[in-house]
C-alpha cells in the first residue's frame, strides 16, 4: 500500500459509526451454539463427578479413569492392579482426576478462543464491538496463567494413554461389546485432539529454526501440524465422544442399557 504523504490532512478521528456492528449476517449463531455446547459439557461434568455408577465389568467410565483408590468399585479396570491412593479416599473418583483433562481443555488455545468469544464476548464475532470498557488480554493475572498450557499437555498424554489402555482392556475382555468399541473410538479421538495441541507442535520442532538439522523432529512436527489443522473439529468430536462414552458406561452400569452385546 502506498504510504500516506506528510501533507495529507490526516485527522485523528475514526469514522463515527454509532452502531455495534454493521454486519447483516447471523453472526450471533456460532457464539450461541458454542455457549450451549460448552455449557452442556460443564453440566455433564458436574453430574458425572457426583454420579457413582462409573464401572461395570469390563468398562470404566472415562471421567472416572484411572481407578486410583480401593474404595472404588472398579477392580477389573485397575492400572496393572494398582491402587496408589489406598482406601482412605471416599470422595467421588472424578474429583481426583478431572482437574487435569479439565485444565488441559480450559487452557487449550482453541477452547480459549471459543469461550473468550462465546462467554466473554471478547469479541462475540469479528467486527462486532465487545461490551467491555477495558481490555488487557492475556498480559496479566489471571489470564497470564494460560501460559501453563504445556504442562497440562504432558499430563494429557498420560491420560490419553490410560484411556487407550482402558479401551484395549475392555476389547480383550469383551471384543463383541458395543461399549468396548465406543471406548476405543473415544480413545482415538482423544489422542487426535491431544497430539494436535499447539504446545505439542511447539515441542516437536516448532521451537527450532533449523528443521533440516533435526529430520526426525521435523517429521513429527509435520504430522502434528496436520492434526493441529483439525484441532477445532477434534476438540468438539473428542468432547462429545468422551461425554457419550462416559454416559454409555454409566447407563450400562445402572442397568438402563441392557442387551447381550452392550
Amino acid at each position, binding site marked *: 500500500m502506498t504510504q500516506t504523504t506528510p501533507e495529507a490532512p490526516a*485527522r485523528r478521528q*475514526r469514522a463515527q459509526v454509532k452502531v455495534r456492528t454493521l454486519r447483516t*449476517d447471523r453472526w450471533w449463531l456460532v457464539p450461541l451454539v458454542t455457549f450451549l455446547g460448552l455449557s452442556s459439557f460443564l453440566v455433564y461434568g458436574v453430574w458425572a463427578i457426583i454420579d457413582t455408577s462409573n464401572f461395570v465389568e469390563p468398562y470404566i467410565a472415562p471421567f472416572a479413569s484411572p481407578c486410583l483408590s480401593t474404595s472404588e468399585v472398579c477392580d477389573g479396570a485397575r492400572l496393572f492392579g494398582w491402587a496408589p491412593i489406598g482406601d482412605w479416599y471416599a470422595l467421588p473418583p472424578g474429583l481426583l482426576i478431572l482437574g487435569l483433562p479439565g485444565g488441559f481443555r480450559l487452557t487449550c488455545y482453541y477452547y480459549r478462543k471459543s469461550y473468550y468469544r462465546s462467554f466473554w464476548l471478547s469479541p462475540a464475532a469479528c467486527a462486532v464491538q465487545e461490551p467491555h470498557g477495558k481490555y488487557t488480554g492475556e498480559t496479566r493475572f489471571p489470564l497470564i496463567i494460560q501460559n501453563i498450557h504445556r504442562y497440562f499437555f504432558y499430563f494429557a498424554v498420560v491420560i490419553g494413554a490410560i484411556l487407550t489402555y482402558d479401551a484395549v482392556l475392555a476389547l480383550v475382555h469383551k471384543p463383541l461389546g458395543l461399549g468396548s468399541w465406543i471406548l476405543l473410538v473415544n480413545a482415538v479421538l482423544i489422542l487426535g485432539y491431544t497430539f494436535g495441541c499447539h504446545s505439542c507442535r511447539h515441542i516437536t520442532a516448532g521451537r527450532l529454526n533449523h528443521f533440516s538439522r533435526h529430520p526426525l523432529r521435523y517429521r513429527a512436527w509435520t504430522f502434528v501440524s496436520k492434526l493441529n489443522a483439525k484441532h477445532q473439529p477434534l476438540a468438539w468430536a473428542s468432547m462429545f465422544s468422551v461425554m457419550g462414552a462416559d454416559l454409555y458406561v454409566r447407563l450400562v452400569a445402572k442397568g438402563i442399557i441392557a442387551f447381550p452385546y452392550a
Partner: protein
Amino acid sequence: MSYKAKFKVWRGEGGEGRLEDFTVEVNEGEVVLDIIHRLQATQAPDLAVRWNCKAGKCGSCSMEINGKPRLGCMTRMSTFEEDETITVTPMRTFPVIKDLVTDVSYNYQKAREVPSFTPPADVRPGEFRMKQVDVERSQEFRKCIECFMCNNICHVIRDHEENKPAFSGPRFLMRIAELDMHPYDVADRQETAQEEHGLGYCNITKCCTEVCPEHIKITDNALIPMKERVVDRKYDPLVWLGNKIFKRTS
C-alpha cells in the same frame, strides 16, 4: 444483465460524516469497487476511495462491506441479493481522511518499530546457506499484501483505541514471528514480542485469520507459535533450567 442496487456509503471528513444513500446500476461480473467507481463517475464525483491494482494484490482498497473488512476489488456483487442494501464504510480502526480513505500510518509506525533482519556478524552476504524446509514456514507470511485488514479487525485496537501504543497488531506480530523463525536471524525477538509489541494482548480469537485475503493462517502459524516461544523464554521453568544445563541450539 444489469439491475439497480441500493448502496449506503459513508461520506465525510475526519470523524464527522454519515451514511449516504445511492441507487446505482450493477452489471454482470462487477465487484464492489466497480460500483464505487460508477458512483464517482455519475453521482458523487468527489467520493474518495483508495485503489490501485484491481487484482487483489496491492492491498489498497480495504474497506468494510456490510460490516466486514473486505477488499473492494475482490468482492463480487454476485455474492449479494439484488434487493439487498449494501453498506460500505471505511476501516473502523484507523482515522478517516475522507470518505473511504483512512490514514493507516499506525501500521507504518509499528512496522518501523520491528528491528530489521539481523544476520550473525560473521556471515557475509553470499555466504547464507538455507534449506527449503528451513524457510518454508516463514514464506507463508511473505504472501502478505499489507492491506491491514487484520490490524483493522483486531478487537484489541478496534474496540480499544488506548491499546494502540502497546500493541503492534497481528500484521507485525507475524513479522516478528517470521524473523524469529528465520535460521539466520540472531536478534532477540521473544522478549520484545511480549514486552514491547504486546503479544500478550492477543487472545487468539482468530479474526485476523478470518479476514486475511491471502488466507495466511496468522493465528495458528505465527501468533500461537510465537506465544509458545515466549513461554519458553519467560514462563517455563523447565526450559529455563534446560537451557542453563545444556547449551541448546535451535
